[in-house]
């Protein structure tokens, strides 16, 4: 029983249970996070044995000498604003509709959610083909409606490429917001709605004074999750345009990757990563505090 005595105390048993998850998590998720911060102050090409300290050089370069960095900041901001507006609003509208007693609503819900489970890279490939300026779906449909003159080089025109990608992104992500809102709507007290109806409130008033206030926590969750996932946008841009044409769809996550893994400037790539990380933390940390306070209040 020597093995038993080793694991006798609850504490040591607990440590055995915790060790694999915490060990792998710390090494493969937390250490790279620390290392990216270290790398951002160094000059390294990924191969040299020595990583040289250069202080703030990488930050100076990306902030003052790298026009693409600012393009990717601008695109990330546009993308995030659009992601916080369109998928959640559409998702909320679909959820409110599906919350009614309707024929076939389980199938409708399944259809809206389907794109969420398709690999983002496959979504990119699908939409790239749909945007094909000669034989793609949009060109064909416009032509058959007699609107062929409206056909654009959807992904090749630098003024519209970002928005073309965003349409595919909406298609993929609306279902996610919808499911969260549907769950939130389950938590709205049915008797409150009935009471308001008896008191003569119409549909819009019920929504405004009963449903919407009850949905407030869900709305916060959906907005924060939408923001975070929009900052992560990588696969879909990589697959559809790779950041082009002429860097017009470049975004922070992809630019960090391109600098490090494309042209092997790990220092500058990491500096871009750190900028993105700081933006993310500015959203995540207050959110985690809020959700913890809320959980403690509900106990």
């Amino acid at each position, binding site marked *: 029983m020597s093995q038993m005595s080793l694991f006798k105390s609850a504490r040591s048993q607990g440590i*055995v249970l915790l060790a694999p998850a915490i060990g792998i998590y710390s090494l493969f998720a937390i250490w790279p*996070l620390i290392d990216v911060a270290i790398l951002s102050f160094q000059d390294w090409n990924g191969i040299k044995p020595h990583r040289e300290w250069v202080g703030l050089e990488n930050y100076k370069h990306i902030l003052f000498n790298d026009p693409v960095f600012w393009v990717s900041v601008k695109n990330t901001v546009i993308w995030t604003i659009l992601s916080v507006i369109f998928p959640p609003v559409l998702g909320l509208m679909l959820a409110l509709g599906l919350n009614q007693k309707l024929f076939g609503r389980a199938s409708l819900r399944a259809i809206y959610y389907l794109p969420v489970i398709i690999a983002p890279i496959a979504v990119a490939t699908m939409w790239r083909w749909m945007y094909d300026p000669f034989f793609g779906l949009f060109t064909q449909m416009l032509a058959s409606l007699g609107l062929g003159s409206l056909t654009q080089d959807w992904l090749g025109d630098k003024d519209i490429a970002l928005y073309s990608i965003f349409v595919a992104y909406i298609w993929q992500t609306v279902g996610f917001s919808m499911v969260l809102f549907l769950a939130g709507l389950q938590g709205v007290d049915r008797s409150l709605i009935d009471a308001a109806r008896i008191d003569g409130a119409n549909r819009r008033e019920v929504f405004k004074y009963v449903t919407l206030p009850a949905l407030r926590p869900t709305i916060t969750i959906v907005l924060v999750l939408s923001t975070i996932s929009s900052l*992560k946008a990588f696969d879909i841009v990589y697959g559809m345009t790779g950041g082009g044409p002429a860097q017009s769809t470049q975004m922070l996550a992809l630019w960090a990757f391109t600098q490090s893994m494309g042209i092997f400037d790990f220092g500058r790539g990491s500096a871009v990563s750190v900028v993105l990380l700081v933006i993310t933390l500015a959203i995540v940390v207050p959110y985690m505090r809020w959700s913890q306070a809320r959980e403690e209040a509900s106990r």
Partner: protein
Amino acid sequence: MTLAASQDTISQVTTDQNELIRKPRDPVLIGLWISLFIVAVIWLAPVVFITFTAMKSDGEILTSAAFALPSTIEWANFTKAWAKGNFNETFFNSTFITVIKVPLGLAISAMAAYALAQIRFGWNKALLVFVLFGAMIPFQVMLAPLFTLVNSLDLIDTYPGVILPYLAFGVPYQVFILHGFFRAVPKELTEAALIDGATHFTIFRRIFLPVSLPVLAALLILDFVATWNEFAMALVLLQDKHMWTLPLGLMSFQGQFSNKYGELNAAIVMTVLPATIVYLIFQRYFVSGLTSGAVKG
């Protein structure tokens, strides 16, 4: 908890149908239904378009209308795409990585979640915050240092080299969900079993695992799809094309054969199909798995 919720939905759906028959139709609801139906058609259109294109010959693609049914099914698209896209290897790699990663990840997450919820260390809360933090951080920012780390361990182009990071980034969300579930089990139950001489290992295996099967099933399905679809980390960690997973294979197929429309679409269909089938079979688990964490937590 989640099981009860889905049973509620089922009973609600059946009463809904009864009410539909009894009540006179409300014009607002009919208008609503029509608009939801139109949106559903739009949402389904890309999938139909891709599937139809995959079944047409290249000549038919250029001449027939986008949503015209294929006149004959061009199976050659699928066999050619399978061969050219090296699907034998990518399909095997994706399957192998998913089959190892998903159960292993759930096991270590469940163990950690149990320990955090039921054993007092004194620093449970701090450790939980440390783990949850990872659920919010985009791993896309650390692709370069991740490559450096895996490279320094000599694991680039190996299965462990991609499975270990996948495990690490799966832990936070799963621990979060399972911790919420395990915490709801009264500590007295665990304490009584401890007094009877059971170890925490036994309690975890004999009591907590069986009780949490519905949650584990939901997480299993979600994680299957997430692992199957993962692209960015695989792109960095798997350089050798014989080690590629399906998403990497599809990306390269698009690069090389983008003018072979039929084959490209067949490749898309074959990549997406396994996750879609899993989704259609286990639909309700997706919803319960996603919402039990995000909304209630």
